[in-house]
């Protein structure tokens, strides 16, 4: 043990923790609600946080879902949104009664724990933001039930109001009753797309057509039979969205080399892929692996839904999405109870753990090939070069040619004409490297709209399988937070006193002409001799 600690280091600095709980559950979907209820039943102190309803400003940036600006003015009424969210799911009210500390409209922007390169935290902590303030919550265990979001797909006009994710559309309609669309066209025919189409139709929305790039629908026949009256255009790609200031008025689709077809609609629903929301888990450093049969990048879990980081669990869609789970929310609920029971047992409460095999069946289609086909047909072959990254305005060509962003004004005739492989090396291209060079994925939406498309583009551009493209890293805060709200207001005195611009190491700033011949700790320069320099 050391007798002296570097006062400029994190050692000895206290993290202000505003509140504590035994268990934090993130996400009030079926899995999260089941987990919170189960843990509370055994006397565990539970906080359940859910960001819904999200502020309308965030919705405008497609956070956390691709809302495509197709929500009515009612979305501005936070109280009404909150009431609708609670009223539409009686299970939430039941949680209040069960003694769960339910925090709605509260996003979790970071989960932190000590690990290989962090040792100064008091234990697992989560960063919460309720719209007015942010604070740290100490929690002995965390169950992440962050759900799913929709994969984006760029085509001319996809930035128009009315191009939105199918999960986003369902949420706007069924949870908040603010969806502003009457006649929609759905892209994709997976179980997830078909289930959403069915529920939207049940909610009074006309589904004008399903568009599918594959030769056959990829979803289950029973569902297709239920939706038999909806035309399915197989072997078609999106050519463009047409519309004006009010947004989408029609979609134009065509088979390869075939006749264009215009379908009038006021919304185009992106249903080509639903993606597990692993942001918090990846930013924390949980092991993630690519499993297309579970929807893409998912946390590595054991039978009790424990991630690779002690005390952190993942359940529901963020732990993996597959057809049966989409059809039957009881699977997600069972995951929630299983994880909660492990939490309960680990906190010293005797509980009988169920021995249940997890229901799992792989998708009946090749998810990688499917997503690549959509991106090849619609994004790469797009006329007019739409922005794949809407925030930073980066096209597919600019991504594949690793062009410096246009605002640098770098002359086009000095473009790097090497291939992607020549520019980046023989290994599969890493989206993190590509985004820092092109800016794709670096914007305010934090890559939610373009992340999967960029990976697909790189796989196609480098001629490698999608599974070999590394995951672009997620970073806290996983929800944008204003500086003034993110700001720590209870900073520890020792932090303030010893705060330094850099390492706070006076000998570093001794000018070379004054540097001593020999450096020893005993004879080192002190602060007064060498004020810090940038």
């Amino acid at each position: 043990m050391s007798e002296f600690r570097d006062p400029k280091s994190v050692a000895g600095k206290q993290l202000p923790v505003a509140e504590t709980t035994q268990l934090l559950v993130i996400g009030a979907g079926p899995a999260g609600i089941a987990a919170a209820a189960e843990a509370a039943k055994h006397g565990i102190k539970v906080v359940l946080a859910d960001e819904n309803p999200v502020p309308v400003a965030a919705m405008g940036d497609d956070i956390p879902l691709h809302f495509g600006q197709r929500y009515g003015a009612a979305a501005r009424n936070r109280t009404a949104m909150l009431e609708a969210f609670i009223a539409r799911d009686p299970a939430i009210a039941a949680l209040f009664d069960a003694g769960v500390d339910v925090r709605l409209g509260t996003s979790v922007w970071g989960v932190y724990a000590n690990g290989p390169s962090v040792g100064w935290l008091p234990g697992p902590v989560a960063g919460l933001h309720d719209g007015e303030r942010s604070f740290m919550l100490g929690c002995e265990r965390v169950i992440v039930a962050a759900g799913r979001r929709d994969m984006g797909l760029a085509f001319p006009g996809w930035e128009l109001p009315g191009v939105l994710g199918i999960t986003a559309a369902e949420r706007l309609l069924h949870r908040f009753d603010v969806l502003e669309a009457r006649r929609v066209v759905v892209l994709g025919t997976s179980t997830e797309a078909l289930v959403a189409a069915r529920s939207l139709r049940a909610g009074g929305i006309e589904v004008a057509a399903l568009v599918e790039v594959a030769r056959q629908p990829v979803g289950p026949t029973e569902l297709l039979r239920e939706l038999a009256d909806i035309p399915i255009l197989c072997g078609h790609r999106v050519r463009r969205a047409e519309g004006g200031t009010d947004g989408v008025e029609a979609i134009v689709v065509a088979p390869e080399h075939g006749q264009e077809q215009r379908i009038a609609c006021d919304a185009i629903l992106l249903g080509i892929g639903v993606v597990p929301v692993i942001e918090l888990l990846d930013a924390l450093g949980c092991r993630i692996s690519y499993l297309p049969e579970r929807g893409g990048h998912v946390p590595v879990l054991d039978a009790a839904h424990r991630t690779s980081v002690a005390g952190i669990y993942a359940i529901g869609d963020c732990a993996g999405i597959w057809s049966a789970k989409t059809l039957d929310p009881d699977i997600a609920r069972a995951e929630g109870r299983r994880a909660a029971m492990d939490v309960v047992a680990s906190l010293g409460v005797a509980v009988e753990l169920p021995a249940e095999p997890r229901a799992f069946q792989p998708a009946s289609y090749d998810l990688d090939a499917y997503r690549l086909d959509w991106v090849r047909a619609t994004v790469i072959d797009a006329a007019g070069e739409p922005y794949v990254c809407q925030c930073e305005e980066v096209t597919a060509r600019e991504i594949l040619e690793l062009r410096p962003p246009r605002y640098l004004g770098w002359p086009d005739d000095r473009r790097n004409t090497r291939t992607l492989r020549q520019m980046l090396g023989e290994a599969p291209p890493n989206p993190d490297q590509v985004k820092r060079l092109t800016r794709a994925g670096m914007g305010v939406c934090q890559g939610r709209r373009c992340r999967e498309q960029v990976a697909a583009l790189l796989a196609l551009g480098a001629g490698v399988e999608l599974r070999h493209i590394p995951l672009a890293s997620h970073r806290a805060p996983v929800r944008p937070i204003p500086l003034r709200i993110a700001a720590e207001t209870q900073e520890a005195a020792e932090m303030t006193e010893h705060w330094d611009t850099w390492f706070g190491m006076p000998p570093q700033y001794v000018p070379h002409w004054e540097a001593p011949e020999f450096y020893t700790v005993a004879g080192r320069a002190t602060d007064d001799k060498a004020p810090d320099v940038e």
Partner: protein
Amino acid sequence: MTERGASAIIVGGGATGLSAGWWLARDGVDVLVIDKGIVGWEASGRNGGGCTHPFSPLFQEEQRLWPMLDELLGYPTEFRAQRIRLALDEQQMRRYGQARQHAVRQGFVSEQLDAQQVRALVPLAGDNVVGGYLHRFGGHANPQRTVQAYAWAMQDHGGRVLQHTTVLGFSTAGGKVTEVRTDRGDFGCDTLVIAAGPQINHLAASLGVRVPMVAARAEMIVTEPLPLMPIGGVDGNGLYGRQTQRGNLAYGGGPHEWLEIDDNTVPHRSSTPLMRNIAARVAELFARAAHARVIRSWAGIIENTPDGRPVIERMASPDNLVVATLSSIGFGLSPATGHAVRDLVVDGVCGFADLGSLRLSRFDRLERDWIDLQGWRPPSRQVAS
């Protein structure tokens, strides 16, 4: 298996290694840079982007090269000249005033500004500013873009980069390094440069060269884009960083975390709630940007020598070994460092600067337990003082 070697092999594809590779390649030297991962992936690609180091013997060359670097490399670095340091109280004003003395002594100009002059150049600054200093030197650039530019420019001159390749050891004969052994075969060399950041310690030790250093983790945050200010290289209030050419505010500062890295691996670069302390200071530094949203935070892992100053030296034994650790200030100095390493490889001595103060022998009398004496241990290994 013996692969095609190179006259000069550089271990470490960061700013230092790639700049050296570029300088050597443009001189016609057959050069190969080997990296365990992706070029610029560690501290070289994730830092404040500052190009202003008046205390270094490489300062004059740093200042000479940056303004012409885009042209020399043929790829954009996003370099922008000049810096402003603004103060929020008299103590900061005094302290930052002293800090410029070394540059002024070397003939560079730094002007004192009043609060109004600061706000004209830094429109996001608020009424809490008391004054500042405008440095007519230094500047800032985009780290990842610059490192990639070195790599591409080196390749344009015939140099090679081998990424995702782990160095396992070295072969020596007759007091020289003859071969670099990797998990992808062995590569013969006439000269070896070790510029592998936190891994230098481990790699050099296998050649009998002891480079005292400890790695640490440091954090930064970035906001959404804001309107471009006339000068983007703004520091102060205990922060370093810059406004990027896109408009984002990218800032760091505050406590670092010492790590123990006992082999060739680098741990997950986790960030922590320190984001909140940095955010508080950015909101003070740019009071008119307090509404701007933080969209990322990240951490980098950086090596430091006991005095925080670089080691750039051609060793006596093995006599074809050059060691270059920049000790947490490598990015900005990299154009000059590459030039110095080129000189050490080709000429045996640096032709444009006196590197005497950067010799390893300055640690010959270093206390054996210097890490404990300086308190450079991970928090879990420390007791309260």
